[in-house]
């Protein structure tokens, strides 16, 4: 006798995933086409002096002058520390500024680095000094006129 139940004769339900694959392929092609390999840019910030908010309490500021000459030689308080213009890391300046930052913290004074860069020095050298300040956790950096 034939089975009279209509549900038993039906095929098992299947999920049609082809539209899902279509969408996934379209998104993949979109990202493949629009993606360009680009290095992400990072920030080195500087707050210019003279316009900062003044706190009511008096803060002792211990200044350090960093001079960069036209050739890229870096001097601290008129003493040359890093003379190789191709050296990005500036080990001697890093050491000086790290110790300066640590001693200022112990003495409870505020650090301030003044960068006096020669007008013809290349921008990269100025950024190198700024980078060392960031490395030594010195946030109060200003530019000499």
């Amino acid at each position, binding site marked *: 006798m034939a089975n009279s139940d209509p549900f038993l004769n039906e095929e098992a339900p299947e999920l049609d995933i082809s539209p899902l694959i279509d969408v996934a392929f379209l998104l993949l092609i979109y990202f493949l086409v629009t993606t360009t390999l680009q290095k992400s*840019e990072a920030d080195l910030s500087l707050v210019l002096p003279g316009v900062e908010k003044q706190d009511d309490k008096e803060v002792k500021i211990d200044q350090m002058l960093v001079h960069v000459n036209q050739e890229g030689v870096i001097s601290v308080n008129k003493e040359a520390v890093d003379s190789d213009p191709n050296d990005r890391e500036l080990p001697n300046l890093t050491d000086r500024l790290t110790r300066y930052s640590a001693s200022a913290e112990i003495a409870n004074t505020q650090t301030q680095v003044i960068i006096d860069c020669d007008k013809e020095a290349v921008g990269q050298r100025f950024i190198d000094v700024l980078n060392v300040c960031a490395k030594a956790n010195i946030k109060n950096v200003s530019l000499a006129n």
Partner: protein
Amino acid sequence: MAKESDLFAGQGLKADLSPMIDLVFLLLIFFMVTANIITYPKDPNVIIPLASDAKVPTLVEGRVVLNVYMDGTVKDIDGNTLSIDEVTQRLSQAKGRNPNTRLHLRSHKDVPYKHIQDVSRASAAGGVPTVIFSTYQTGK
């Protein structure tokens, strides 16, 4: 005896798509994760300096982006050349609209420092004390 065709009746050849879908999804997730949303156009003619301790920003709101080229020319992101006075004016106007305005300086790595100094002075004159220098991270 059953014929061979009867043994495989109703079992047509089917390609198993699941590994392909897995692969497509993996690629899709890779591109979605690695894609950066371009927040402002970056002029490829300005080769920015390298700095190992710079931080990749998470917030770029309130920035006025200026490009400083090798010859000292200052241009905004639309490519309009600006004089130093116009930089001051532009930043002053931006400060009026948004008090949290910051100058985002994309200066060429070999530009003489005097041009950076000029734009920084113009920024201070326009009431925008924060200058952010764009750099590429290195060694990380």
